[in-house]
């Protein structure tokens, strides 16, 4: 019997049992209802776990193409030799053993919103009552002609997803002779993780300062200014890494010569020894193909009470792929918050109840500006019924007064706690 047919019959059986057992109380439909989650990252893993925690009568299948989760947040520290990739890695075992999430290691390739089915690369077709997509985003290499060939992308790395790219970039930096140039290009906002590139510049600068002090870091930012924690990053570069870090705003990358590691900008060319390009980004292909993109041809519009797509019913979208609310960053922490609101909302909707009309979420984001010193940005967001979006709660938005080792210890703790919150 094929996997999908076996699953279909199991669901029918669960529905029949639930119908007989419940009688009064919540609708029998919810018991045995089937939620499929795409993406085992900060948004999807969290949503899958929390639905099972809060409504064990609802079946959850999580589709994830990687066998392990590797955190991109904090992975810049690998570039400085401060942590190993293994420290940022977690498995999916507890989701199945502790919470009975059905974890399927496969890639979701197509959605049929009318039939409510999800097709996987391996051939299976999963029926769903509600679909939660936390698919991340696509890196748009096509927009940089010199990066269209795979061979070019082996030399010019992004490391904007953690794993092999992180290790390869670390090796490039280790191999670079003293006196070399590391150039980092940043696309126009919005992109995944606003402070990420500036933290990366700090990590590489710290590594150079302590190991290759004649080397340089050049930040070519398409934006007008530093997009997050601006006064703090600027001060650190000036006071801790003088003569090492140079920041150039209004520098959009137009093309790349991967053979010579040359970045081509509007008015200049920069030849680097290590060229690191963070490409422009867009909601992942699976969301785009399903007709979910509603903004700027890039991002998925959602109802902030439920994260349900404004384009297609029964599909909820989390994390980096969505059109952000005001001052809502594309961060892992934020996606984890989305996951919990969506979990509660999906449970309510499956039970025929109204979702929480007053969701509150927050962001806390730590950046390592040296081996041990850290700065944060944080905010609390509350639903505004009139504007129908999340707005920043007064007095909650702010950053560190200055870098500190204390916040460095909090940042390390944050990592361990959020990965446990998602996956343990």
């Amino acid at each position, binding site marked *: 019997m094929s996997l999908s047919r076996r699953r279909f019959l199991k669901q029918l059986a669960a529905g029949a049992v639930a119908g007989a057992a419940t009688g009064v109380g919540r609708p029998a439909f919810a018991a045995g209802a089937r939620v499929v989650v795409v993406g085992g990252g900060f948004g999807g893993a969290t949503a899958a776990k*929390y639905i099972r925690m*809060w409504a064990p009568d609802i079946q959850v299948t999580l589709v994830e193409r990687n066998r392990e989760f590797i955190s991109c947040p904090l992975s810049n520290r690998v570039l400085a030799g401060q942590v190993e990739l293994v420290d940022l890695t977690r498995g999916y075992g507890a989701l199945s053993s502790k919470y009975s999430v059905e974890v399927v290691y496969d890639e979701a390739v197509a959605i049929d919103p009318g039939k409510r089915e999800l097709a996987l690369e391996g051939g299976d077709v999963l029926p769903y009552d509600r679909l939660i997509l936390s698919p991340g985003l696509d890196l748009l290499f096509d927009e940089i002609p010199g990066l269209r060939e795979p061979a070019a992308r082996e030399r010019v790395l992004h490391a904007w997803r953690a794993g092999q790219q992180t290790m390869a970039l670390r090796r490039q930096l280790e191999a670079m002779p003293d006196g070399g140039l590391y150039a980092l290009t940043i696309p126009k906002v919005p992109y995944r993780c606003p402070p990420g590139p500036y933290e990366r510049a700090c990590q590489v600068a710290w590594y150079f300062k302590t190991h290759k002090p004649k080397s340089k870091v050049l930040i070519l930012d398409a934006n007008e200014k530093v997009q997050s924690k601006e006064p703090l990053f600027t001060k650190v570069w000036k006071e801790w890494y003088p003569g090492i870090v140079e920041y150039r705003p209004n520098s959009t990358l137009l093309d790349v010569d991967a053979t010579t590691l040359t970045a081509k900008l509007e008015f200049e060319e920069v030849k680097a020894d290590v060229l690191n390009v963070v490409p422009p980004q867009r909601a992942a292909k699976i969301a785009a193909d399903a007709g979910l993109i509603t903004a700027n041809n890039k991002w998925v519009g959602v*109802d902030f*009470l*439920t994260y349900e797509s404004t384009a297609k019913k029964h599909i909820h979208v989390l994390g980096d792929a969505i059109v952000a609310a005001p001052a809502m960053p594309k961060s892992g*922490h934020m996606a*984890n*918050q989305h996951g*919990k*609101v969506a979990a*509660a909302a999906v*449970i*309510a909707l499956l039970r025929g*109840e*109204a979702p*929480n*009309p*007053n*969701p*509150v*979420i*927050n962001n*806390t984001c730590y950046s390592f500006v040296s081996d041990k010193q850290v700065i*944060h940005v*944080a*905010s*609390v*967001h*509350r639903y505004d*019924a009139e504007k*129908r979006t999340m707005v920043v*709660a*007064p*007095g*909650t*938005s*702010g950053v*560190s007064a200055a870098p*500190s080792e*204390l*916040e460095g*210890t*909090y940042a*390390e*703790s*944050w990592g*361990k*706690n*959020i990965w*446990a*919150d998602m996956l*343990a």
Partner: protein
Amino acid sequence: MNQPTRCRIAWAAALSVVLGNSATAAEDQATRSLAANCTGCHGPGGNSVGAIPAIAGLEKAYIVTAMQEFKAGTRQATVMHQHAKGYTDQEIEVLADYFSKQKRQ
């Protein structure tokens, strides 16, 4: 999507009743959703690994005092003064009550 007024009232009432005796399913979920704000940093169930303090099993009065002092800016903080300002006094009571009842591991 506009929520009918009665649903808004139901959820608000749910939060206030939570502090009383037995909670209904809706009250439980309202509380759990609010508390879920905190676990990304403080760990699942408020049990933390590392420097961020665990909040599971703390005395309710202590949590309320700490959060009110963070809100007022009278307690030393790196980030909690920002978070505390995001919640109403009633929500702080609910959070404190919830985490005081979580098992410390």
